[in-house]
């Protein structure tokens, strides 16, 4: 798959491609701010940045409709934001404030928003895949032409749940778009040290599932592939597998000393920064200029400043409510302390 803006400069694509730039930039700036806020101890616990991988979420999520569903991992700020969860609600969540999208209960790894059908924020590697299959099963049983997009890393491919879920989805022809964010590492474990078969799309053949390998640093390629794959899934062709080859520019989490990869390798990948690449292409095609770029930056900054202010002004849930949400219903039914 590849996208070539030169040949696709019709109006709709033009709008889409600029939107993709805007999307990636929002995510980038949002997370850069998160990193700062982590240093300031405003955000605590684990924080996994998506910086470098934005093209994947941006390209895939633009292909979905409002009725579709998304299941993501602990590295999901970008996915939440681009799915339409407000920066305010996300930032407040990362602060642990009750104005957060999960009322502060979840934090960075557990962003949820039922209104946009964003089903987390799953921090057990591979744990989201069966849930995605189930969401799709619900759609299939109710004859709703919806798609569930399920994001997971290359590391998850080794988990048993990957295998079980891909088989189940293929067997039952469930409308799932499996999006493997192959950033070449699972924490410090390089793909070749985790997988006997490093061509991950080949794995899909073991389930008779169509699969494409996509350059995950090229947001237009991702968007094109995802748009076609989503159409196929929605049309009832069963699940689809996308391997999105990408790279994380930052450490795995804020604790990672990055002993396992060379600085030079990281620098090389940074040359392929998806935001810089798209910016150059759009500029080259005359689709954006300095003023437009500055406006995009300004908007992003404004959105983030607003989100931070919102989070700062947010409130802590009273300790008396500790055992809420263990069970449904009025109070803390069934919870014992």
């Amino acid at each position, binding site marked *: 798959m590849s996208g070539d803006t030169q040949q696709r400069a019709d109006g709709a694509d033009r709008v889409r491609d600029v939107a993709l730039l805007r999307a990636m930039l929002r995510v980038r700036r949002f997370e850069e701010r998160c990193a700062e806020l982590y240093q300031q101890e405003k955000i605590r616990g684990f924080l996994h940045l998506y910086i470098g991988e934005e093209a994947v979420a941006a390209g895939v999520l633009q292909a979905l409709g409002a009725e579709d*569903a998304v*299941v993501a991992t602990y590295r999901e700020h970008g996915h939440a934001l681009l799915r339409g969860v407000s920066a305010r609600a996300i930032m407040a969540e990362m602060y642990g404030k*009750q104005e*957060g*999208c*999960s*009322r*502060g*209960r*979840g934090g960075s790894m*557990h962003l*949820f*928003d*039922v209104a946009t059908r964003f*089903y*987390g*924020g*799953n921090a*057990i590697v591979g*744990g989201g*895949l*069966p*849930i*995605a*299959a*189930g*969401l*799709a*099963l*619900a*759609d299939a*049983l*109710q004859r709703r032409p919806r798609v569930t997009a399920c994001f997971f890393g290359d590391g998850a491919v080794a988990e*048993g*749940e990957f295998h*079980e*879920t891909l*088989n*189940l989805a293929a*067997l*039952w022809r469930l409308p799932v778009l499996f999006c493997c964010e192959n950033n070449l590492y699972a924490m410090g474990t390089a793909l070749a040290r985790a997988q006997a078969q490093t061509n991950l799309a080949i794995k899909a053949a073991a389930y008779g599932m169509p699969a494409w390998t996509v350059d995950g640093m090229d947001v237009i390629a991702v968007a094109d592939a995802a748009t076609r794959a989503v159409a196929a899934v929605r049309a009832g062709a069963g699940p689809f597998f996308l391997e999105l080859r990408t790279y994380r520019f930052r450490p795995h989490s804020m604790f990672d000393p990055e002993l396992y990869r060379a600085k030079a390798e990281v620098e090389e990948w940074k040359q392929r920064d998806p935001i810089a690449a798209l910016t150059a292409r759009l500029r080259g095609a005359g689709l954006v200029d300095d003023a437009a770029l500055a406006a995009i930056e300004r908007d992003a900054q404004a959105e983030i400043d607003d989100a931070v202010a919102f989070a700062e002004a947010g409130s802590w849930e009273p300790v008396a409510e500790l055992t*809420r*949400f*263990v*069970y*449904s*219903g009025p109070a803390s*039914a*069934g*919870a*014992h302390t």
Partner: protein
Amino acid sequence: MTSSASLSAPTTSAAPAAPLGPLSSAPLAPPSAGAAPPGVVRTTYRNAIREAIRAAMLADERVFLMGEDVGRYGGCYAVSKGLLEEFGPERIRDTPLSESAFVGAGIGAALGGMRPIVEVMTCNFSLLALDQIMNNAAALLHMSGGQCNVPLVIRMATGAGRQVAAQHSHSLEGWYAHIPGIRILAPATIEDARGMLGTALRDSDPVLIFEHATLYSLEGDLAADAGEVPIDRAAVRRPGSRVSLITYGGTLRKTLQAAEQLATSGIDAEVIDLRTLRPLDTPTILESVRKTHRAVIVDEGWRSGSLSAEISARITEGVFYELDAPVARVCSAEVPMPYPRHLEEAALPQAEAIVAAARATIGADG
């Protein structure tokens, strides 16, 4: 909810029928002999569960059943026999051997608006799905700040007693009761087999139902109009005054037998069927012990860390000054289940041990 359910011996057991009361401690109905009285049907625990599934599926289109061999095979314990023919393969779904995936898919389907019944063939295999149960089913509502309800019912067979050895004889329901966010049910009677599932399906949270494998063939009477039963209260199955025998699931019958034996020597034991293992109905337990001043807990789980420990601790915490003797426990031996019958019987709680524990408790207050 009227009830004249009575508990007959299962085909494989030589034990005499012991009468069971309704949930309240109203006087017991006499055991039915021969043909069922009017308004009452003769059935089995197995058929009662099947009826419960049928009724739920007829009443609510969102309900479906999935699990290994629930369809063409007819269910490992024949519980779902005939349902595939009645409801078709969309709603009676045979799954591959993928416990984690299909339990997780049940969670996802619940999030997606369905009311799935997931059958994990036996609790022995549920360990493969435990991550989904603890980290997703039980946690999603909380992690999402109250947004993501998981109205999922998971059924599984549990328990020993059929000489199927170490990997097929676990009693894990009490252990599962440690997990916040889920509800645990242990139907011990035909009435509860018929009634708990429907109520569980109305719950907005995940409910795990553990069906003791030795109960499936249990025969008994059931009200023709039997339906849903409450799932938040323990039941006094036999009122008594001298000692509280507290149990659930597969050991209820043995405990009732023990109570009958005790009665013959003038000891009037109260038998409590917990029914719901999480959340525990502590008030009913404490009320009983406040009356009898003595308690014996009977639990098929391995003793250490079994639910019996929690109950003992709660009794101590709640009515310590009412106790005339230490709370006693009759549990399974702490051994992976051996295959030979004599060793399996020795490993499991038996009526004799319950009687002995009750007597020791009574003798103990000097």
